[in-house]
């Protein structure tokens, strides 16, 4: 075998694929942190005194923080901030990430004359 043609996301072969995969990784990391990092942050900064009781499907009753914090009590455009962030900003961010990727890959493809 003259060249390595085993395809593996973590071991890209060829210049084009290397650059492509590098930006894919960046986008996926930003995407994950923006959605789930923020969720975790909400839990992390929550006021420990504000709790609620939840009845789980198993019948067990647990007490957990309700998530009240400066993120939920600050108003932004009238919204509680976290509500605006999740229901409006993140969707715009998704569009932005997709736009970024398309621009990048179009340029890369023209460089490599594909």
């Amino acid at each position, binding site marked *: 075998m003259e060249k390595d043609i085993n395809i593996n996301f973590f071991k890209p072969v060829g210049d084009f694929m290397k650059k492509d995969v590098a930006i894919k990784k960046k986008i996926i990391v930003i995407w994950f942190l923006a959605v789930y990092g923020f969720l975790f942050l909400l839990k992390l900064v929550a006021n420990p005194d504000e709790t609620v009781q939840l009845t789980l499907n198993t019948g067990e009753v647990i007490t957990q923080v309700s998530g009240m914090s400066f993120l939920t009590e600050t108003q932004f*455009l009238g919204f509680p901030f976290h509500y605006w962030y999740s229901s409006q900003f993140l969707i715009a961010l998704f569009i932005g990430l997709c736009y970024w990727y398309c621009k990048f890959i179009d340029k890369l493809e023209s460089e490599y004359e594909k």
Partner: protein
Amino acid sequence: MKRMMHWGLSLFFVLMSTNAFAVTNLNPEGKFKVIPAILMISLLILFIMVGVFSKAQNTEDYWAAGRGVGQIGGGMAIASNWMSAASYLGMAGLIYLKGYFAISYVLGWTGGYVLLLVLMAGQVRRYGKYTAPDFVGDRYYSTTARLMSALIVITISFVYAVGQYKGIGMMFNWIFGIDYKTSVVVGTGVVLTYVLISGMLGATKNMQVQYVVIVITFFLPLFFIASKLGYFSAVPQIGYGAAVYDIGHGGNGIVAAASDPSYYLPFAKYTMYHWFALCMTLMLGTAGLPHVIGRFYVVPRVSDARWQVVWGLFCIALVYWTAPAYAAFAKFSNLLGTTGTTITPDAIVVNAAELAGLPEWFAGFLAAGGVSAAFSTVGGLLMAGSSAFAHDIYFRVMYPNASEDNKMKVARIGTVILGVSIIIVALNPPALIAQITAVAFALGANTFFPLFLLGLWWSRTTKEAAIAGMIVGLAVTFGSMLIPKTSILAFYIPFTSSAVVGVPAVLITMIVVSYMTPEPSQEIKELLYRVHNDE
């Protein structure tokens, strides 16, 4: 054949008469609402006309719409194909009921497109196949894998469409005053008719028309609702933010004692784990739904396939920025103590207009839009399901020498069988619209997402791994529905969110099995190399 029909019909009437999970009658007096009815009927005529005038000429058209749809047009088609009764009616209903927790539906159904674009769209288009099972059968060099994946496509279409039929039935019930079950039969009869007379070409044109209808009907009443309730109504998508704040803290007529902070607090009703599990399942499902992936074959150039995703996501976002507003305004009116309207979660969008005291035709607008949303999705689903049957099972596996005419005929028979059998389940729907839809997503995530992900990105994945992966994926999806509702397992694997456990399990299975079985042939690897480097 005759006996089968006879048997089918009797079963049909038996199910019609059982009332185990009866859907709330939205229109108990059986009132025929004149303006909404005129709106609805003119829309139906419009859809059928568009379908007739852009009729499919041959099978090439029927499956891939001639591969000639532009970027924005394709984006609109993606969006209306995507936005179903679950987005239009179901999502707002869940936000109304579950508050911030249900924002995970909004994010799950948009965020998945990032994964779809980055990991799949371009590569799938370059691979150059017609359908998802075609890809699976070819990449995993196995007829068994092709057959299994075709059956999974049919199952996904089936489950997904059940939720849509419910939406259609409820809206027909509200508009025409006929009871829910008759509504399901009448409404879906119309969808079947237009899918049959037009193919995907007709459907693609239709989807663009439907997208415009969806956006107009969804936006227009909201301005009036916002202004009626005293919120910033020029951009009600921003104006509703203050309503969310008032729901939680009191204000604008709501006394502090009557406020409901659990509406906006993140962990007031569910745990963080469940938010994560649901959002992840919907995202991975989005990237693994065969009828969504299928749209990339319609595009002539790889670059267009990608830009269609961006446009599609933007068109979807317009509606998704709006849905939580309906939920908030309905919740607000509800706390204000507006009475006289029975609230049904799956009809909350229509209820919101009624609660705000707007004239009936506003609600009629929304009801008609809800049906359009369901129509476009059912159209795409029936296409995906019947082409899995006609193309992947009948043509590829059973009769490779079948003529064009025969394939068309089988596709149409498949559409009818699928369309009619969905009615039977939809007569007694098992859950809320968005929940039924979430199960379809879990199935997509647990099967097609790993198949495409590893299939495209790891050339070592073998055919045995694909088959084992599908078996595990099916087991997790359906297993999660069977485990007792009160068990600890059901806590960690809710049936709407099973992919959070399912996808890692399937990926591990596929990787382990791949290493235990002989490597794929050199041709497969070379093909993948070309897909990624295109030299």
